[in-house]
């Protein structure tokens, strides 16, 4: 028996856009042995998900496999009838999707979605499958393994659901599982649990896996080999340790280099300086749901303050309170020593001008029907009373500042820009008001690492040139390490800790900060094992 489980040769996939077929994958090879895990790395649009699905002989709606061969354990997947390939999917090749919340059917209990695979594929009966599910739930340390299956997907948290989906993929004991960014949507503290769950289960059943991600540190923990894709082409492939230590290609090296960005340490603000932003005893709620509990912090002029925490920790809400979008029920916000009205509608034009925002999704934050000149020109016109030629000149200056060629971009629409360019326009729009304070709400989390790094560098440069103050909301601690001067850690609507970057990252830490910091994946392939062993000993 040969050891090769999956053999993909010269695979080409086309996607339909605007009525023409365009190549998404231009002839990629992939070989996978039994029990082996290969990591697929690449930016968005690299074709890694498409390649993963092609390993099941499947293409999304609007895509087609146009060339090459996919051989799975001696079966040519591209020449199967629909019924034959359905017989393999779920039974011998399983799939774990990025968002378990969207990929579990909201209408059925988790256990029923688990058992339907084995029952329909006639691998085992319902009762037996149920018993096995409980064993697996327990193995993946899901709470209440005997009853959790009877819950509906919306009754279970995101991290638990992602583990339940991994369990579901195991239901027929497949030979191969495709993991498509299974932890991308999770907080770091949850991610680590899911990662260890996946690794345990893959080890125990000696399942081969294709692990797709854009996070190098994650793939370093999971994969035996790493393959790097760029725009549908293979860049290089090597065993994990070798790839981490000695990447060969320029592109790979540039991916590795992103992690080296680090801003210089600024001197601490002088005592007695009035902070630019003072949040004092703020308590806020959405309707009846309390979100912030007595939160106080200062932000000094010219500094970058990172606010970190998991989803639901209240970090965006704090920003909304400062911007006047959500009036607090108690407490107040002082800007430049002056108490601002709590609701933005009661703030004067000069007060509004002080605080500007940059949003996470540049896609939805820019009006698709307006040209760049209008998007950036509007705040310039409103706050600075610039009209006609003067406004256009101002837009050109701003485009120049955000490193986009003015003549090329000024008359374009947002749809004609890339993700990184759109985010730059978002920055220019905030700058156009000439604010003193900018709130950056997860501005890089929707971007690929290289692009995100460019945005961070730009923000740093602008801060130096224009003496700006940033409140930088993020859940990504690597970003915090790169650019923050001060750090605020939040959990469940309250402050855990605040201080300068050196203080926060240097031990000793409060328990929660420790958990948060130790959960951030490191490039060391042994990181996950070390952390988990360490945590097991503490228990």
């Amino acid at each position, binding site marked *: 028996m040969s050891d090769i489980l999956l053999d993909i040769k010269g695979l080409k996939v086309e996607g339909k856009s605007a009525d023409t077929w365009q190549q998404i994958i231009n002839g990629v090879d992939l070989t996978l042995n039994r029990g082996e895990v290969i990591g697929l790395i690449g930016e968005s649009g690299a074709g890694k998900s498409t390649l993963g699905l092609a390993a099941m002989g499947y293409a999304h709606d609007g895509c087609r496999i146009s060339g090459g061969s996919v051989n799975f354990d001696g079966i040519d997947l591209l020449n199967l009838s629909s019924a034959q390939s359905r*017989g393999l999917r779920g039974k011998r090749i399983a*799939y774990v999707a990025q968002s378990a919340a969207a990929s579990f*059917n*909201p*209408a*059925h209990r988790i256990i029923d979605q688990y058992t339907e695979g084995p029952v*329909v*594929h006639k691998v085992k009966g319902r009762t037996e499958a149920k018993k096995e599910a409980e064993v697996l739930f327990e193995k993946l340390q899901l709470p209440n393994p005997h009853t959790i299956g009877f819950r509906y997907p*919306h009754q279970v948290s995101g991290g638990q659901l992602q583990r339940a989906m991994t369990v579901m993929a195991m239901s027929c004991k497949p030979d191969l599982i495709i993991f498509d960014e299974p932890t991308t949507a999770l907080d770091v503290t949850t991610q680590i649990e899911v990662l260890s769950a996946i690794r345990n289960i893959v080890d125990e059943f000696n399942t081969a896996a294709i692990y797709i991600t854009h996070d190098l540190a994650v793939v370093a923990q999971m994969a035996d080999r790493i393959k790097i894709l760029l725009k549908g082409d293979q860049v290089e492939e090597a065993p994990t340790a070798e790839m981490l230590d000695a990447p060969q290609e320029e592109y790979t090296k540039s991916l590795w280099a992103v992690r080296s960005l680090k801003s210089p340490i600024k001197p601490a603000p002088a005592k007695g300086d009035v902070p630019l932003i003072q949040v004092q005893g703020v308590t806020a709620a959405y309707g009846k749901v309390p979100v912030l509990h007595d939160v106080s912090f200062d932000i000094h002029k010219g500094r970058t303050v990172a606010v970190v925490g998991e989803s639901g920790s209240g970090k965006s809400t704090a920003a909304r309170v400062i911007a006047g979008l959500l009036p607090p029920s108690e407490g107040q916000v002082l800007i430049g020593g002056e108490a601002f009205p709590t609701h933005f509608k009661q703030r004067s034009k000069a007060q509004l001008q002080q605080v500007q925002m940059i949003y996470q999704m540049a896609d939805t934050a820019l009006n698709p029907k307006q040209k760049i000149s209008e998007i950036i020109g509007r705040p310039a016109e409103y706050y600075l009373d610039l009209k006609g030629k003067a406004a256009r000149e101002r837009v050109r200056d701003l485009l120049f500042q955000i490193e986009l060629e003015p003549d090329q971009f000024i008359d374009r629409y947002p749809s004609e820009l890339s993700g990184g360019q759109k985010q730059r326009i978002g920055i220019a729009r905030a700058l156009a008001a000439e604010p003193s304070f900018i709130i950056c709400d997860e501005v890089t989390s929707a971007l690929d690492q290289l692009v995100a790094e460019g945005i961070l560098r730009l923000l740093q440069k602008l801060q130096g040139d224009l003496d700006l103050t940033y409140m930088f909301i993020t859940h990504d601690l690597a970003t915090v390490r790169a650019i923050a001067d001060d750090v605020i850690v939040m959990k469940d609507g309250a402050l855990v800790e605040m201080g300068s970057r050196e203080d926060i990252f240097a031990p000793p830490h409060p328990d929660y900060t420790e958990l948060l910091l130790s959960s951030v994946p490191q490039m060391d392939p042994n990181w996950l094992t070390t952390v988990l062993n360490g945590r097991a000993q503490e228990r």
Partner: protein
Amino acid sequence: MIALIQLILSRVALGLLTLLIVSAVIFLSVELLPGDLAQEILGQRATEESVAAMRRDLGLDRPLIERYVSWLGGALRGDFGVSLANGRAIQDLIGERFINTLLLAAYTASIAVPVAISLGLAAALYRNSIFDRMVNVTTLITISFPEFFVGYILILFLSSKLGWFPGISNIRGDVGFFEFLYKTFLPALTLTLVITAHMMRMTRAAIINLLARPYIEMADLKGMPRRRIILKHALPNALAPIINVIALNMAYLITGVVLVEVVFVYPGLGQLLVDSVSKRDVTVVQAACLIFASVYIILNLTADVLSIVTNPRLMHKK
């Protein structure tokens, strides 16, 4: 569970409030008609004394609010007063006809709902196939013709030419169950043709709308057969819009079938309403309108509650 009961109770309360408002509108709209009701009944040559006596008999000399309350109170007990045209108690006039209308509606629904949903599911399963297009075109044709036209065509072919079914559905007295089905087959078929298209197209659209969802792709990647994907994975999530369109069509079957009843001389509520309007029998019109409004509100309420009950997010809180 308590939150769920609260939600349902609040829907019921809203339904009752709507019904109260509608009853007031029905009552007032008759009041606002020009002329004096007693004068209308007795004709132009009646003496002033007889008109005054008539007004007393009808209770028209009492204040508006008082009359409204006593009318509504009577209606709640099933007592709608007497017909102005022939002096008979309205509940006797309406009772049997309302039951006839309900029977015809139930007959039609028992054919149309299963047919429409099966066709809709099959069309979604084999979408863009010849079958899908055929079903779409055929149902579109049947819905495009006015219902009386469909009725006459059916009478022409199935009754006059082939003689399979009676063209007149004038059921009277004690008809047996199968005799009823036989005699009312043509009106039921007519109504089926009229309402199937709407429900079928809505079912198809609701299912197809869901097919791009990640959980449908997941079912596909689990190797589930297409039929199972449609029935087990898409249909339960499409129930709310389907239930609503069924309720809408059920309401039409009870309140909108006047023309079909006239074509087939079927003794239903619709015919009574038409007769009463032409005879200016306002008390009967009022009663019929109130019954129609109640049916509408009850059916919509049922659809609301069913939508809640079939939604696990509402049934099983976190």
